């Protein structure tokens, strides 16, 4: 049955399989408490940007001494623990309705003449390393908006893009996230193992078929079929991972099961709680959340449609935009409270070892320059409590690079980065 490896090689690319994690491999399951709490990251993408007039601090007040504008006021109690950076942008971005597609990737959509090229997102770079230690390498959360990939966020299935620049699917409801994290299947171990063996055998079957098919294909088609091989490989890797974890029951949920349909403010609160819980139980160390827009507005009683709001000018649309900002800041302040409240084994808090990023590729109205960027947490060794104004057109990816490096990853560049942002480093 171990012919799988052979089949996988028949594609245009050699597909590496996780060899050692096959049958019988035992994870250092209840492994000793690590000496230092692990690094973690979460990225919160808001799609349409912020209200320029009332969200960004005055550019003349930089450093630690700056006044919090109205849109950030609810975050006052955390002022020493986050940093705002102005002047950042993704050089190649041109989609005035896409706040998320290239936010974490910094890709050139027209690279090599393509019509919509993308590349790996910062969270996935982190997941490739941090994910080895947890049940879920990363988790992608999505807001419940129906028109989610429409205006505001742009193309994509979540904030995350894999190393081939393909969109990664997200989970759309708090309940589904809860189930993924905590609901345990009551299956005896040997049966679980049998099920995995049988699944592997199924995969072998389809690989055989895929290989046979590939024999007759032209280059383009063969390339397309690579995706199929890649998908099978993903399942293989997941199985290997499941196998590592199968003897270890899922953690007990530190929160109650969320109710089913919730939208807007309630939904974001629940998702934030779940994100804290995912960190707390060390289920995953890398999280992204593509925040709802339309449902957030409706839950605030705002009658203006999301896209109309984004085209604000003084009047009810601007008020809507400002209410959205304040709501986000309140929710974010609540999230930081929780991260600070959860203790690591060494007495420090979750907050001390994670990075929380909030922002968008769109700054305000339909501008792609000065991407709103909010960073909190002690995970990446950055200077907190600051308002930084970078020189105009500093790549946003420089910030991602700084965070990745600060979190201990050996990364030399990301997207269109030109180097770490020195002013950000503590």
């Amino acid at each position, binding site marked *: 049955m171990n012919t799988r490896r052979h089949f996988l090689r028949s594609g245009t690319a050699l597909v590496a399989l996780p060899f050692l994690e096959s049958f019988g491999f035992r994870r250092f399951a209840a492994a000793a408490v690590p000496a230092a709490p692990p690094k973690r990251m979460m990225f919160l993408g808001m799609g349409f940007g912020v209200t320029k007039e009332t969200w960004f601090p005055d550019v003349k007040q930089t450093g630690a001494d700056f006044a919090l504008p109205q849109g950030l006021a609810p975050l006052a109690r955390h002022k020493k623990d986050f940093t705002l950076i102005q002047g950042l942008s993704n050089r190649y971005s041109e989609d005035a309705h896409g706040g998320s597609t290239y936010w974490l990737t910094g890709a050139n959509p027209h690279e090599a003449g393509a019509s919509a090229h993308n590349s790996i997102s910062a969270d996935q770079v982190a997941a490739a390393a941090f994910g080895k230690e947890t049940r879920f390498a990363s988790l992608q959360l999505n807001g419940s908006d129906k028109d989610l*990939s429409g205006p505001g966020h742009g193309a994509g299935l979540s904030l995350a893009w894999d190393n081939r620049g393909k969109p990664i699917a997200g989970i759309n409801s708090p309940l589904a996230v809860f189930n993924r994290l905590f609901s345990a299947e009551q299956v005896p171990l040997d049966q679980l193992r049998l099920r995995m063996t049988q699944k592997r055998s*199924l995969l072998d079957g389809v690989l055989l078929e895929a290989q046979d098919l590939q024999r007759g294909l032209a280059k383009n*088609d063969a390339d397309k079929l690579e995706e199929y091989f890649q998908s099978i490989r993903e399942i293989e890797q997941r199985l290997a991972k499941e196998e590592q974890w199968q003897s270890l029951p899922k953690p007990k949920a530190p929160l109650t099961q969320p109710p089913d349909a919730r939208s807007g403010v309630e939904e974001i609160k629940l998702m934030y709680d779940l994100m804290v819980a995912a960190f707390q139980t060390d289920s995953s160390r890398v999280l992204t959340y593509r925040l709802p827009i339309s449902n957030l507005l409706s839950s605030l009683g705002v009658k203006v449609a999301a896209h109309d709001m984004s085209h604000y000018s003084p009047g009810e649309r601007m008020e809507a935009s400002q209410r959205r900002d304040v709501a986000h800041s309140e929710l974010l302040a609540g999230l930081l409270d929780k991260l600070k409240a959860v203790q690591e084994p060494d007495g420090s808090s979750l907050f001390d070892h994670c990075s929380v990023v909030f922002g968008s590729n769109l700054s305000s109205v339909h501008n792609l320059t000065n991407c709103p960027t909010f960073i909190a947490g002690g995970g990446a060794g950055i200077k907190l409590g600051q308002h930084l104004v970078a020189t105009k057109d500093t790549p946003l990816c420089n910030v991602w690079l700084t965070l990745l490096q600060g979190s201990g990853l050996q990364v030399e560049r990301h997207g269109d980065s030109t180097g770490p942002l020195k002013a950000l480093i503590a």
Partner: protein
Amino acid sequence: MNSHSVSYWQRSYSLNLKAVVALFGLLGLSQVTARSTEVPEAVFPDKHLALLKEHCFTCHNAEKQKGKFRLDDLGFSIKDNRSAERWQKVLNAVNSGDMPPEEEKQLPTNAKANFLDDLSKAVVVARRNLSDSRGIITMRRLNQREYGNTLEALLGMRMDVRELPADTMANNFDTTGSSLFLSGDQVEQYLDFGRAAVAEAFMRHDKAGTVLKKRFEGEDSISSIPNSLKERIEGHRKFMVWKREVDKAAEKPENRAAADAIRKELKNEAMAIYHRWDKIPGAPSPTEYGFTDAFHALHVGQGQWALVPYQAWFLSMPENRTGVWLTIGDNAVKSYFSFATHDCPPGDYVVRLRVAASDKVDARRRFIEFGLGAGNPFNHDSRHMVTGTLENPQIIEIPVTLHGNVVSYFLRERGSHDADAIEWVRFGLGATENGVGPDFAIWLDYAELEKLPVKAVAPGMRAIVPVLGDANTKVDAGALRSAFEAFSIEAFRGKKPSEPFLDRLIAIYDDHRQHGADHRAALKEVLALVLVSPRFLYLNEPTTAVRIAQQSIQTVDRISASDLASRLSFFLWGSPPDNELRELAASGALSNAEVLKKQTDRLLNDPRASNFIRPFLQQWLHMDRLDFFRFNAKRYPFFDVSTKEAARLEVYETFAHLLRENRSVGELLKADYAVVDGLLAVYYGLDGVVGDAFRPVKLPQNSPRGGLLGMAAVYAMGSNGEQTSPVERGAWVLRKILNESPPPAPANVPQLTRLEDKILTTRERLLMHQEQPQCASCHRRIDPIGFGLENFDTAGQWRSEDSYERAGLGKKSWLIDPSGAFYNGAAFGDFFVLRDLIHKRVDDFARGLSTALVEYALGHAAGFSDEALVDRMVSESKSQDLSARIFIHTLVQSREFQSK
């Protein structure tokens, strides 16, 4: 198939390496010549040179290169990524106002608008050219709806595939191969879905002979209502007692001040002191009177009490003894009827509703909504006009598919459970007429559910029936193998699975049996595996490019007859080829142009053609916009979900009508008929349309209806549910009708500086767009068209007046002025002249339609490689009065459609 042929890409072990390299090199070359073509240039008109010289070259030249950017050497033809990149940078800098710098001389407004207009267009063309597909059609995965249709064709039942991940990226068709990704998650979902589908198919087979009929009587559904009336009356009595006690306490001299303070705090709200009873010393708690709190007491004593007269009226209706009136309201009356499908095995059923409508009510209320779910779902599955009378009720038949789980179906008056509490607006309309509540409109005698006999065994099941047996059946290995083979051939749309694959299927079956699975369970695993195989999931088209046997090299890029059959049926049915197509492919007859044409016509005549018409139009015309907004129920109480759905269908059914009758697509721009059902006819004020079938109806003289520009759906899409959006409408007309897409909205355009703190007409507000050249470059084209359509309100009804109101600022009303002129073009005084002018440009429309069809059918964005085909479609159709089928025939007969 020639078994000696192999692809030019395959690294066959039987060929020696040198030969392969040589072949590959040569063929790579011949590919290029066969497909032709160098990237054509996108040209930015050099008339802008003077402007560049004057405003840009001083800083961006060979010596200075300010900002490390040189402009003087940048050619006016854009033919590679590098120059596209650089021109994009110029465009961005001018759009954002960064260039020219503030302190420098600025571009004259008009020249700047023209400059941006031309440059943005040139960049769009350049990007399109550079990402051109070179005419290659890449293998792709079945999209969500094709997957559902394919399962249905194979196993015989419709599954709900909406739980599978959606596969459209923004702004392209769901047939676009490059957007149809596959991930591990998805493969697992397909695996689970396939298992469930197979399990259900088995169960349907087992229960094929079951006879079942259930009836749910209307009058049995209201037994609790008399009791509820008693409870409401009693609740009100208790409330009044409590209220009196609170009043007594509040009137005590020592409590006066406290009571006044509450009234002041709650702004003299009538019920203030009852809400805050606890602040009044001596007032009793509502809990002493059986209420949970003050809110509950007020709800029972006031809100529910208000409906008691209506409830009493309802209970007095004699028809409720033999059936039930369905009306608007809460559970004081019967606001919807529902029944559950207990003990119903999976299968196809029919629901029969015996219903009548009152002749006393407005025609708009003589419709019902039917659907799946219980409680207050906003959406429904179908709408029906009720023509039966109390003397002579009618029976409405609705086909449904049950999956074996218990579900509920509901039936209600249309719009009685809509978003934004539309029902209370409607209730209010009724109550103002008679002081009690709306007249009873819809009467139900009974609902009946009957299982239908199985029509024909689906091909996939036919393959497996010989070995289906039961849980304990032992099957002979040979029989099992042939069953697996037959099933795979059906699943793979006629292609044979390999022997090793069949070996593996047997091995998997055996393995599951050995580990304790019963026969049926093991079978299910094997079949689910077939359903995640790439030959099932992908539209794969192996190509035979090299004939080694002949020792000569020739590209054969034509796809095989069986692949052509697949392309054709997935194009026009969204599902796999049926037997007839497959046989014609196998015999080779399908390669004959006449046969192919006949088959194309046959497919278009089949009801399954709606699997092409609907998704094509839905995506092409961006009809998802219809679902983006809720419509203000107060202003548009009859643009409810029913009307919205009927309006959506009008678009599809009009196109279906053109295809069926092979009429001119020009009728989509102007027609003296509209294709409507009874519901939409009532909405449009057209008389004499009875029933639910869409049919062409002759329009009165001077009707604004007829063609896309007469459709409520088009106008509703061009609004946000509250107000019209002339910009959306104008841009839609440019994109979809005049084939003149404005470039995407540019980023980084500075905000308009003027304040919105004024009450302005729509036109005044939008004209502000044109103050800035960055906006004017597009809006001078878009806005005049939008203004010309302002006679249609948010919900697509004709109007002559509009108004705008802002709290604190006041209200302004104005007569609509639709007059205007196309940018650099003809003027129009009203909508009718505008429509005529648009109709004159039917050739542009035909080109846009052709381009969309090519993209949908070939699965890639249309670029210069597709232009020849588009040209042919336009010229062929023009020679035949633009009749709808010519577009399809020309496309299907083309080399492009039949090649890789």
